């Protein structure tokens, strides 16, 4: 019987019936139960005889037998004999467990959402797959057209700003060196202080040359415009770089120049000092 008990754990839906069958007392059992019952009733109150239960169990066994015979009509097997039935009762093992059927692969996201230290988000499935398609269906055309409009708008803006870089009318996006220049322009429009390609260190004569050239160009443009009667933008006021006294380092002499281990005072210095 012990082995049987163990197997009962895997029996799910019909386990009650098998238990009933096990409980069905044999003739020997009932005799000593009667003795106990009589003794108990002598001491206390009369008991209700659990006769109905036994009868039901027997009935069900018979039903089982009938069912089996019906299903086996046509075969040469002629049913289960009564003696066999008593020895090994039919044990119905139902492997179609409801929970086993419904066993789904546990969603990792769901686990993550639930098993964190934070408060569990019971509404995670709204953020994942389930929600997204419904959202698309709802928003549908409006959202798509909005996104398209934005994209086209940006492309137009860029074309207007960077068209001077384009070499031919065929390709609307700058390529190669021009692409880098366009990127630089975008950076500047986004707030970069200077161009990425502004050369910081170069010979002073060269820099001055470049500056002079730019000034000359600008002047020429202005002159031509004036001659042709074109009104240009106002010239930005030139910030005069003060060529005066440069800020000196700390700890230098307050008067004169210290060179070669000697303090040299000019006439002006002497006049300043009142000598």
């Amino acid at each position: 019987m012990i082995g049987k008990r163990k197997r009962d754990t895997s029996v799910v839906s019909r386990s009650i019936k098998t238990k009933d069958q096990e409980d069905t007392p044999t003739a020997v059992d009932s005799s000593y139960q009667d003795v106990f019952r009589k003794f108990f009733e002598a001491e206390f109150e009369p008991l209700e005889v659990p006769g109905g239960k036994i009868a039901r169990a027997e009935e069900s066994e018979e039903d089982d037998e009938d069912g089996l015979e019906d299903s086996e009509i046509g075969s040469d097997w002629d049913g289960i004999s009564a003696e066999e039935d008593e020895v090994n009762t039919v044990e119905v093992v139902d492997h179609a467990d409801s929970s086993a059927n419904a066993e789904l692969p546990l969603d990792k996201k769901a686990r993550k959402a639930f098993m964190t230290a934070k408060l569990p988000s019971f509404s995670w499935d709204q953020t994942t797959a389930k929600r997204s398609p419904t959202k698309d269906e709802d928003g549908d055309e409006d959202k798509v057209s909005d996104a398209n409009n934005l994209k086209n708008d940006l492309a137009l803006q860029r074309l207007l700003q960077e068209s001077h870089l384009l070499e031919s009318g065929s390709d609307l996006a700058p390529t190669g060196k021009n692409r880098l220049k366009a990127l630089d322009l975008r950076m500047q429009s986004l707030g970069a202080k200077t161009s990425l390609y502004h050369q910081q260190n170069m010979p002073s004569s060269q820099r001055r040359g470049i500056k002079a050239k730019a000034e000359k160009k600008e002047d020429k443009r202005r002159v031509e415009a004036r001659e042709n009667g074109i009104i240009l933008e106002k010239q930005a006021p030139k910030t005069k770089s003060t060529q005066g006294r440069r800020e000196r380092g700390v700890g230098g002499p307050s008067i004169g120049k210290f060179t070669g281990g000697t303090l040299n005072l000019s006439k002006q210095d002497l006049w300043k000092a009142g000598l």
Partner: protein
Amino acid sequence: MATSQPPLRFTGHHNFVYRLVFATLAGRTVHISQIRSSNPTNPGLAPHEISFLRLLDAVTNGSQMEISYTGTIVVFKPGLITGCAAGVGGNSSGVINHELPANCTRGVSYFLLPLCLLAPFSKAPLRVQFTGPGVITSATPTGDMSVDSVRTAILPLYNQFGIFNNIELRILRRSNPGPRGGGGAGEVQLVFGHQIRLAKTLHLMNPGRVKRIRGVAYAVGVSGSNNARMIEAARGVLNPLVPDTYVFSDVSSAPLVPAPEKNNPAAKKKVGLGFGLSLVAESSTGCLYSADVISPVSGGQAPEDIGKQCAYQLLEVVAKGGCVAPAAAPTMLGLMTMGSEDVGRIQVGRDVIADESMIQLARDLTKFGAPGWGLRDAAGENENGDVVISVVGRGIGNVGRKVA
């Protein structure tokens, strides 16, 4: 906080923590006497109650308490709830480390629930780490819920009061009750970073229908197959009723505590072995119901039984009706009382309100100066024999916030 009012007098050890919590929130001195005075062997405060007083002392500033020689009388004069402001309370990282003694038989949720009730009204965010040989993260035979249930069934309720930011309950190490129901050396960290002036007024009248069930099966120091067996049994009961049922499994090793012997002073032993299941049902209107069952300390119960028992317990809690599970009722009603001066309403099951501890809670709250609850039968479509409790907020709220 200096109060010239005479102390409120209570007797008995029932509802001890909530009395102290409401004393702190209301700023009234309490005098609790006859604490287990008739108990010849263990009179006075129990270890967990002493521990709670210590915790209260740690999170407040200026609390004073006097405990009589036998521990049967406590006078508690509350201070301001400061939490863990920089340099005040806690260690260098601003975390209060609260150590529970090994003879503490209550789960850590015994401390967490009242602490969470205090935390929204503290001056600074609250960070408390529970350590020591007495931390039981699972449910306990003494009736405490597991930490998982606190996190999944109690803390989300604060959302309804406008408290939702930066709340974390981290289970660093799990533990079941140790031998003879004593401590289990787990580790839990609570971060409660959302402080408010006043709790929002709550109107919760529609319980809705249970739409999903989630749960955590935990096995500490025992085989993880116990989890699978519990989950299968629980799902066998619940799946036909609610198809959206997931129970997650968490297997961890048992915590080690030092157990020095004569010839091996560095010896350690494993405590807090066992397994358990925590289930949470969420209704369509956001009401949460939870159930907790663990393996008995003495062992000898099959995981299938635990799983089935827990599922049935969950069904029972849901069957009690209303918008609040019995375990969450003190929290909800406490927060409603601490709300703005407006009438909040909440629908509860008849069995939930007709509970001894709930009646005691109502009496205690009136003693602390809260207006009495208004009870009437629920009407309309969500009736089911429920009762609607009307609670008037006190409008005091967070004293620390008012000053700051």
